[in-house]
């Protein structure tokens, strides 16, 4: 009875089977909940890619072509009337519509949702307003930003929203932080 070692073998077999089962469960759990909106370490690469894409787009939008006074992005900020455009609603005026159509073409058509917000200093602190709004971002959203300096002679339309932080002492007006939030749908 003492010399019979069959039970030891059965025990080791049992442990091996249990290990196999645990491995399968871990594999399934790790593989199953990978949706585009899942925030995980595996999506860091995609997030970095999205960040680069967004930053590049803001740089391109802020490029002033030869013969133009302002970049399309700066012109959109100057012409903006303080209204938030939601979803696919018609965007006015023309310069804001141009920015919206570029964003839709580059991001929206590639399955990437976006929000464009403007953040600037006011006499009561820093205020943030939505310009183009497509809903609440998911957990894996990334935000990129670009700062635009405004001057008195630029002609800001939404003076009730974006105040002159220099009280006409000089031609300095304000600094607008354009924040683009991107996430995969």
């Amino acid at each position, binding site marked *: 009875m003492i010399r019979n070692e069959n039970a030891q073998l059965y025990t080791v077999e049992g442990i*091996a089977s249990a290990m196999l089962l645990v491995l399968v469960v871990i594999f399934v759990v790790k593989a199953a909940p990978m949706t585009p909106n899942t925030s995980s370490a595996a999506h860091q690469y995609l997030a970095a890619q999205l*960040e680069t894409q967004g930053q590049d787009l803001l740089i391109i939008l802020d490029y002033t072509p030869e013969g133009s006074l302002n970049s399309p992005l700066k012109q959109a900020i100057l012409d903006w009337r303080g209204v938030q455009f939601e979803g696919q609603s018609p965007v006015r005026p023309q310069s804001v519509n141009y920015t919206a159509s570029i964003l839709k073409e580059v991001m929206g058509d590639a399955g990437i949702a976006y929000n464009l917000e403007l953040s600037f200093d006011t006499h009561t602190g820093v205020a943030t307003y939505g310009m183009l709004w497509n809903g609440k971002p998911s957990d894996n959203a990334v935000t990129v*930003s670009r700062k635009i300096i405004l001057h008195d002679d630029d002609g800001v339309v939404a003076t009730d929203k974006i105040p002159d932080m220099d009280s006409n002492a000089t031609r*300095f007006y304000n600094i607008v932080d354009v924040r683009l939030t991107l996430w995969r749908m």
Partner: protein
Amino acid sequence: MADVISNEDGQMMLLTGLLVVIGVVIYTALLNDIILTANMPSTGVDISKQDIKDLRSLTESDIKKAAYYSNTNLSMSENEKNNYFLTYINSYNNTIQKMYSARGASVDVVLNNVTLNRATTNITIKYYDGKVGYDDTFIVYYP
């Protein structure tokens, strides 16, 4: 034949083989994870870089703009031009400080030496976001 069937030594060898295979699978999975993590581009680190780049280019371009506004106002005396320039940069500094502090970073633009008539300004920009600190002194030239 009956003796072959009752000999169970082979079972132990098979089981050992199975355990070795499981070990190799676990080791491979771990190694794969380590390599993936080591080569993963980290998001967030670039935010400081971008912020510093923005601060430097914005400051440089707006100093040129301030100098342009000061120098093109012919009705002002040299002293008034200097005061205008300093007021402009002071407003710029106050606003940029608030914009960066809203994002958790502290910045400062210090004018070391302004010579409007010689078209140069020596400035120092400072940036600190709790992790990354940046301090740079440079000269801005303007026409």
